[in-house]
């Protein structure tokens, strides 16, 4: 199915999403990748509020700097699984959706089942994604540069649902672990 949705996707809409759906997201997402997640973990450990609202959609990305006249530089997704260690705490905080790329560890999927959906964007298509970003505001951790937290307004941001609330993981369907005609040595 192909359709458009507001982001963050409201909780009552999350259950309608099915792994394999192609969606154009319009609304607000927050970037955070490796270093920002490490800081989130420290802040949560100290009981401090995070600079991203509960219920937000986190975009695992570190944008390139904007050239003059641009909103943002190329801004494609990074590998989701590097954020695996932080995910249970982020789910407990109230993150119910993320955009990244690639599969996640089984313990992450176990923690997400029934609570959160995973979107995947296309790696290497940073220019396309940048063209769908209409606003970019630095929200936290300016010292982290590309790894800082940015609030992005996105329009028709194309993603695929790769993990749905019922627990279907699209990547496991295409893991390549099915037998090939000559066994790998």
């Amino acid at each position, binding site marked *: 199915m192909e359709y458009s949705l507001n982001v963050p996707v409201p909780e009552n809409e999350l259950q309608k999403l099915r792994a394999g759906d192609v969606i154009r997201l319009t609304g607000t997402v927050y970037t955070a990748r490796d*270093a920002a997640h490490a800081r989130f973990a420290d802040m949560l450990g100290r009981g401090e509020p995070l600079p991203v609202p509960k219920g937000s959609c986190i975009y695992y990305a570190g944008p390139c700097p904007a050239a003059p006249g641009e909103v943002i530089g190329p801004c494609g997704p990074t590998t989701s699984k590097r954020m695996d260690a932080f995910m249970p705490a982020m789910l407990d905080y109230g993150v119910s959706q993320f955009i990244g790329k690639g599969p996640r560890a089984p313990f992450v999927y176990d923690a997400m089942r029934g609570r959160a959906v995973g979107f*995947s964007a296309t790696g290497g298509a940073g220019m396309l994604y940048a063209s769908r970003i209409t606003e970019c505001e630095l929200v936290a951790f300016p010292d982290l540069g590309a790894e800082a937290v940015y609030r992005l307004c996105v329009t028709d941001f194309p993603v695929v649902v790769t993990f749905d609330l019922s627990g279907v993981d699209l990547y496991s369907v295409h893991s390549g672990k099915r037998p090939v005609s000559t066994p790998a040595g």
Partner: protein
Amino acid sequence: MAVVFADIGRNVFIDGDLESAVNEGVRLAYTDGYLRKSVLDPITRVNTRDNTPAVLHVRFVPGDKLTLTAVPKGFGSENMSRLFMLSPSAGIEGIIGGIVTTVLDAGASACPPVVVGVGIGGTMEQAALLAKRQLLRPLGISAERGDLADIEREALRRINESGVGPMGLGGNTTALAVHVGALPTHIAGLPVAVNLQCHACRHASEEV
């Protein structure tokens, strides 16, 4: 990361510091060219702010020219690269198995369809560098050695039969090419390095 290969003609005299010049070029490209500053200290994780230092590989070649090749290397694919120090008894099947296993284990994380650089032989670090050099070969050109071309063909066939597909979402194109290079190694060894490169396989050369 900015990887730069410098092939220096034996008759070239460089008046100055090549490494500094390369780093200055990288600094300008990343600051003036609005590229992302992605390089940091591995322990403190403090960013160098200008994407230096570059990873510079120098070798001497015949002639009087200096050839510089710049390869911006993403780490989604670099992270999924592998080194196998195989036993010689593993043979051709072991080599192909290592290549295929690397690509399938990488799955969506390496941003398929990937280009696969393979370095066979030498020592640990030489195999890895040889694998990276294979990424510079234009797509559509097989290895000159027939036995290496056979490995390329068979590994590519098995990889694309896996069904991982573009971005790991299913399909018949998981790799665009497998490029294999080989160098003599020790009687006790069979190093196989597999360097993955995502489909955004960009590199440029300039002769000075």
